[in-house]
């Protein structure tokens, strides 16, 4: 695809990290007033490209041209000053500062050399409004916001810088559908105002809705650029993964005779965040948890994992009432619960430690005798898991931080599988994971369920809930407002119950 006069062009960019080739001969051209989607598997080099574009890292080779002039960025600030602003995949907010502080962070308004807090607040309010997030109070600390709100702040922060080229690297991965819609309308408006936008997402339907141009990356190379709509999804995915592509979701077993529940919640409550949660989970079942983000799903998983204090109501495991007061108790033999947490970088992994140490950390008891680790037994178990999950790691003695995000996620899952759990709780396990890997994870979940595990699976992605789950609990305001089963599990019902409105209303809205 040849563009007449792009706003920004990157030519033959290469970047190596030590021996790792992150980008090789990558080329991309971005025109104004358009949304340019960048697609690719995990580790394809998208984030690296973005980091170079935004001045976070410097390329080893290649050149960058902004409006016909060669440019190079020594720091993010330089790129910002030229109007290139990005919303990074790893959030770049300062948790201990207020939302307003964060929004004006790179260029706060000043009076007499000091930051003018009143002006700053006005700017913040305006930016939040533009991002469609005026419900966020500019004085609240970022630390106190849930992830989805933080991502809205991140977007507002980028907007406040009045960019010419705005980059969003998986900026919507933590957002709920309604937020995504808000963001999309903002993005579309920005496009109409002449902004150039670069958009990275692993969600195909988002790209279908937004993109004008697309570039596919694979193994650090830019494979092809094309106008949106000129290829089918099937073709795009095959470009990305470089092989043929079949249906994403494994077949559901369909209705079966239910076994006795292995886990039951009876009137589980926690403060005001969880109210009277009651449901059963049987071996072999994949139970989805849906709803808008922040309706208590996270707390529900944590409550079942023994993290929350003063949980009222009953939790029955294998029919016996248990009182869990720590993850250690939750994971130990009779209960045997596993939790794949929300944020793999801070809750799932010890990034600088090796793959070996990470995978075996939750199941050290299985491979040790009286506290001494049997290294060969450990290696054997790990090998098995690496194969089962197809984790791409050169050796198990490399730091887990040098794996790609998708592989890191698989490590988190592997570490719990090593403990052979009966009950697996997953908190949005496929966030930021490419289609190929997602597919592997879905298949794995089904395999685990068939092997007799009960799986409880929270996701922000409705497609996933629809495709994977035997039952979906939709949560609203800390309680389960609906349980969907069988054919009821479809996007319309999900959205409808998530917003706590009747299906008819949704239908009307959809028609409109």
């Amino acid at each position, binding site marked *: 695809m040849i563009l007449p006069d792009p706003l920004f062009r990157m030519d033959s960019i290469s970047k190596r990290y030590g021996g790792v080739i992150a980008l090789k001969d990558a080329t991309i051209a971005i025109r104004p007033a358009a949304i340019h989607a960048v697609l690719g598997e995990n580790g394809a080099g998208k984030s690296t490209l973005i980091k170079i574009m935004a001045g976070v890292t410097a390329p080893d080779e290649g050149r960058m041209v902004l409006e016909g002039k060669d440019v190079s960025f020594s720091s993010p600030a330089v790129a910002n000053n030229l109007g290139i602003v990005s919303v990074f995949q790893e959030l*770049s907010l300062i948790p*201990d500062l207020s939302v307003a502080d964060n929004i004006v*962070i*790179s260029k706060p308004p000043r009076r007499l050399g000091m930051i003018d807090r009143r002006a700053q607040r006005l700017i913040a309010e305006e930016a939040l409004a533009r991002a469609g997030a005026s419900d966020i109070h500019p004085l609240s600390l970022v630390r106190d916001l849930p992830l989805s709100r933080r991502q809205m702040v991140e977007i507002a922060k980028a907007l406040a810088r009045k960019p010419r080229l705005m980059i969003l690297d998986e900026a919507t991965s933590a957002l709920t559908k309604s937020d995504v819609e808000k963001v999309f309308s903002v993005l579309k408006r920005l496009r109409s105002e002449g902004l150039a936008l670069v958009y990275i997402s692993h969600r195909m339907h988002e790209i279908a809705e937004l993109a004008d141009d697309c570039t596919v990356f694979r193994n650090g190379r830019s494979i092809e650029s094309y106008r949106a709509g000129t290829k089918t999804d099937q073709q795009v995915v095959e470009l990305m993964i470089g092989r043929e592509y079949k249906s994403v979701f494994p077949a559901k077993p369909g209705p079966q005779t239910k076994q006795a529940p292995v886990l039951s919640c009876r009137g589980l409550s*926690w403060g005001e965040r969880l109210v009277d949660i009651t449901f059963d989970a049987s071996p072999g079942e994949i139970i989805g948890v849906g709803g808008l983000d922040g309706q208590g799903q996270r*707390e529900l998983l944590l409550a079942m994992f023994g993290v929350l*204090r003063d949980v009222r109501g009953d939790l029955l495991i294998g029919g016996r009432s248990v009182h869990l007061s720590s993850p250690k108790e939750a994971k130990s033999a009779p209960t045997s619960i596993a939790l794949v947490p929300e944020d793999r970088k801070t809750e799932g992994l010890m990034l600088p430690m090796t793959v070996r140490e990470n995978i075996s950390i939750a199941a050290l008891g299985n491979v040790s005798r009286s506290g001494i680790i049997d290294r060969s037994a450990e290696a054997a178990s790990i090998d098995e898991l690496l194969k089962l999950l197809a984790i791409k790691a050169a050796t198990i003695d490399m730091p887990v931080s040098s794996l790609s995000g998708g592989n890191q996620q698989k490590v988190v899952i592997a570490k719990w599988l090593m403990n052979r759990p009966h009950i697996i709780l997953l908190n949005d396990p496929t966030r930021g994971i490419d289609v190929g890997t997602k597919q592997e994870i879905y298949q794995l979940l089904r395999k685990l369920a068939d092997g007799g595990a009960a799986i409880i699976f929270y996701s922000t992605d409705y497609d996933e809930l629809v495709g994977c789950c035997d039952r979906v609990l939709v949560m609203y305001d800390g309680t389960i407002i609906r349980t969907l089963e069988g054919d009821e599990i479809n996007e319309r019902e999900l959205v409808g119950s998530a917003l706590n409105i009747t299906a008819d209303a949704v239908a009307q809205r959809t028609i409109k």
Partner: protein
Amino acid sequence: MTVSHGEWRFWYDLHKGTLLAAMLFVGMFVIYASNHPAGFTPNVIQTASNKATLLAFVAMAQCLVVITAGIDLSAGMVLVLCNCLASWLVVGTPLQTGLGIVAVLVTGLACGALNGVIIIFGRLQPIVTTIATSAIFFGLALLLRPTPGGSVNETLADAFTSKLFGVLPTSLVVLAATILLVWLPFSRSVYGRAAYAAGSAESAAFMSGMPLKRAKLSAYSLAGLLSAIGGLYLTFFSYTGEAAYASGNAYTLYSIAAVVLGGVSLAGGKGSAIGAVFGALAFRTIGDLLFVFDLDPLWQPLFQGLVLMLAISVGAIGLARVRNRLDWFQ
């Protein structure tokens, strides 16, 4: 600061630590003053405030560095070094004295900047770096004052340690002025904000293009400056200079205690120098309590230790209210 209606909650959240420290101090001081044989007189307050300001300056210095998630184990030695230097320079005619004060302050600034430069550009960990530089600063102090001695412009010294209008201790006024002239401008400047950001989430701050290096450098330099003010005050207070290893170390450790009592998070990114000042005042009051409780001298160190233990445990009370155990790990 103007707080519009309904937003006090955010303000309170932000200043909780400082308020707690202020309450702790007021509580302890009331116990002290109301049991003092001489009562709540200007003299008693002057004595207490003279002693406390010294630590308050070092605590402010420590606070600046701690906010960036660093630590300055050389703060006490900068104080000692500046004390020794001042005992040479802050004497003579008003002009000489003035120049001497400037020289001492510049020296403190330079010590802080040296720490900053090594830590930032050498990419070293603050704890060890400042352990090493504190040896250097102490060596210099010993060169200046192999034995205690020297003198200071006594008129000036008396002026700085006496009372304004017979009631208000000058040292408190100087302390307030320092907060006003050093801390407030810094905390509201771009560098100040970057210092908080560096302590809170360094890589995020870098991604946002904040001037991290300059912010940290200014935090360390200002810390040196504040310690130097402390050293100057020590000179005013004692009329001499002394290269005292033990008291240098003691000030460093006390300043950490003061900062924690003042609600500043040792992990960085949270707290304010005003809190640290209250922390210092509270910490000093612990020592003062010895006067009003008639304790066997041999039990006094234990008493002080226990009160400190108690004071820092106050922070742990909130823990009982944590209902999500993950909040332990913030």
